[in-house]
């Protein structure tokens, strides 16, 4: 976790994210798989 590059300020981060909004939300970065992170319900694990 060592920092090697200058980190962006909140303003720079916001500007970069907004600039990328259309690209990041395009089909290229969309997944067809189920989006799940975390612990499943027990009934899901049994099934």
């Amino acid at each position, binding site marked *: *976790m060592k*920092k*090697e*590059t200058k*980190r*962006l*300020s*909140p303003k720079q*981060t*916001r500007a*970069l*994210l*907004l*600039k*990328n*909004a*259309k*690209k*990041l*939300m*395009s089909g290229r*970065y*969309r*997944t*067809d*798989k*189920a*989006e*799940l*992170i*975390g*612990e*499943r*319900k*027990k009934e*899901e694990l049994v099934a």
Partner: protein
Amino acid sequence: MFLNEFLSTAGLPLTASDISEEALKELVFSSETKLNWRGYLNHYDHDDSFHLALRIDSDENMPGGAILGIYNAANGVLNIYLLESLVIQKQEHPLRGRLTALMIVAVSYFLSYFDDSQGILLCEPSPNLEDYYRSFGFEYVNNEDKMFASIERLNEMQTRLNEAIGP
């Protein structure tokens, strides 16, 4: 909320908000949800809780996607404990396939306000999406069922994306 400005810029008819108590009840009691939302109620109530619901404007309490995490000030890492999309079967839904990317945008923005923040930790990520997570800069942590991306890696990915040619 910044994420709503982001969604508007991307031209997506979605709204982001905190997970309300009503929405949390829906997530806990619904037979549609696959994750153990009930087991993380204390995380929702935690002082450093980070939670987000995404839905189409006209939707009711149940969001199309929801995210729950906690920012660990001791190590500067935001742990994502639960992320669930409920629109996988809805081919035309604007949130389908985009929840993970939206989580990364929201958390990147959130972490930018903490001088000592270090990155994002995904707890129990879906193995089927390993390559997808890697495309955003995440790597497995030792032999644990967790993936981590540093602020620098997340920024690097966004910078590369910005420099990439084409839409």
